[in-house]
């Protein structure tokens, strides 16, 4: 079916002709009221931990870098990958294990985030720095800054003039409940997730 015929069918189902169409003006808008945070950092931490994420608050880039090394050491990861992100590049320079040649071979992926949504404990990841480093490895570490926090998704999309090809809101580890509704972590995407926040 071509576009014109398809749209005509919809129009005639609504008993309208093409010339009848006027731009509708929805003027509704809702606010989401599910929190009264004392601080966005605290709220993010609570929500992130509630869904099974690990949260670390640090004071400087140097501390963040040390935290990354510590997590990698504890995880016994053999190789890592990272996303094409300024903040990350300087941090990964000191990592002792090798960078994986193929992203899907890496045990750990390191990235930053576009922003963070406090009321749901969500990281916003976007495609311009690459999609795969935060997706393929079994572990994901995100290094972020506290000033990237916004209260809800509404503020995250406010004032955006264009969307990246992929805008992904990631909340905690990959999970499934497809077998008898039993929660199981880490099915297709990272099962271990850490956020290191520089304050």
């Amino acid at each position, binding site marked *: 079916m071509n576009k014109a015929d398809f749209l005509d*069918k919809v129009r005639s189902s609504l008993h309208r002709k093409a010339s009848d169409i006027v731009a*509708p003006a929805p003027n509704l808008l809702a606010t*989401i009221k599910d929190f009264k945070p004392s601080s966005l950092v605290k709220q993010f931490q609570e929500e992130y931990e509630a869904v099974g994420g690990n949260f670390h608050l640090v004071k400087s880039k140097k501390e963040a870098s040390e935290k990354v090394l510590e997590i990698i050491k504890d995880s016994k990861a053999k190789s890592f990958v990272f996303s094409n992100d300024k903040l990350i590049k300087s941090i990964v320079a000191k990592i002792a294990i090798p960078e994986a040649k193929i992203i*899907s071979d890496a045990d750990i992926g390191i990235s930053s985030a576009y922003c963070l949504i406090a009321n*749901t404990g969500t990281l916003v990841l976007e495609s311009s720095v690459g999609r795969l480093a935060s*997706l393929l490895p079994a572990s994901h570490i995100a290094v972020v800054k506290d000033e990237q926090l916004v209260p809800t998704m509404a503020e995250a999309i406010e004032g955006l003039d264009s969307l990246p090809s992929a805008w992904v*809101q990631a909340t905690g580890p990959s999970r*499934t409940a497809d*077998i008898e509704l039993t929660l199981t972590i880490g099915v297709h995407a990272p099962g271990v997730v850490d956020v290191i926040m520089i304050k």
Partner: protein
Amino acid sequence: MEISTHDFKNNAKKALKDKNLQIAMKRATKTFVAKREKAISSLDNFEELRSYCGAVKAHTIEHLDYYLEEFISNLENLGVNVHFAADGEEANKIVTQLALEKNVKTVVKAKSMVTEEILLNDALEAVGVEALETDLGEYILQLDGDFPSHIIGPAMHKTKEQITKLFHEKLGSKEDASIIELTAVARKVLRKGFLKADMGISGANFAVAETGSIVLVENEGNIRLTTSLPKIHLTVMGLEKIIPRLKDLPAFLTILPRSATGQKASSYVSLITGPKKETDPDGPEEQHVLIIDNGRSNILADPKLRDALRCIRCGACLNICPVYQNVGGHAYGWVYPGPIGSVLDPGLLGLDSTHQLPQACSLCGACGEVCPVKIPLPELLLEHRQRAVKQGLSAKAEKIGIGAFAFMATHPKLWNSATKIGRLGSQFLSREGHIKGSKIPVMKEWLKERDFKTPAQKSFREQWRNLKDEK
């Protein structure tokens, strides 16, 4: 899946005797209902958001011609190839031709009810293209040659024991593997599929007219992989998935996961807006969107049923439905079960082969109360029943009962007094708290398939009023 909506009564009888199914269904629906309630109570204004989302969807459906056109032209501007199909056959032809033209050997699929509706996997296999379901539930069903029974938890009708046995036989996993081990096995097998696939096929939870974005909601990460790894990404969507603006999305993303799985947020929400940009390090080079009618414009053309197109497929009405809880999804005989299935299926397939579905409803009203977009499901079910009666599709004695019922249900005063009378009268007719059909003449035919609990002496509303008075 062979359509057997015409045979609900027999399907339901079989389901009630299936012990595994009964165990699995009771566990699952109870968990879903409890989780939903908890998640909703953490919001101050769920009712307000419900009204808002219902109104946005109703508005969109009323102006679907406008918003569809806006969505399509935004897709085109983004460099997305847009395809249109009047029905399933045409849709399958478009997808298989595209796959062959692009020399696709393996397709990875993210869960999509509309592709179940049109039997896309069969069509792909028929032209020699491997179609691999990657949602864990869907993968289990594909391994077993089985079909989804729930729009959110597709393998909900299976017990863990059944799945362990299946994986042992088909994938060589341990005979006593735990759920964690089963999941790890599936991850490994499916990851190989992802890495070799030439095309990823997803559905769409929402389509944003203003930006041309496809919104996908999931927990596993298989949708992220499906839309990121293969060179080609195809979205197959029904024409009703549109929402007008990006700023409408946060409200929908607040009510959907709460209503569906009782989560504040699903693990992943992806907004896909066009194919990979030149400067993006990865992502699909080609994006296609296939918009399907397949009976939806018939529902759109029917002002009394149009509201059904608001559905965001959360599954809440299934979980709360006493009939669904007992018979499971397969008994309904098609991809959309439960209350919303009993409303949509007659609209999509015609009432002739589906009129038993709305008749199975016990008219308790629970579905209408949970629906996050406020679809008046009980009214729509009644509408189908009246039409079935008018068209001579349901048994004669039942006609009188339902006709009277519908009349009373739409006249609140009469309804209240009639239910009071019914309640008093039924105390005399019941034995051990159950009414056996034959005692009430007009209900005889109806009750043949139903065994009622004796109505409470006081209705819920009366009890509630008394409680409030006592305070």
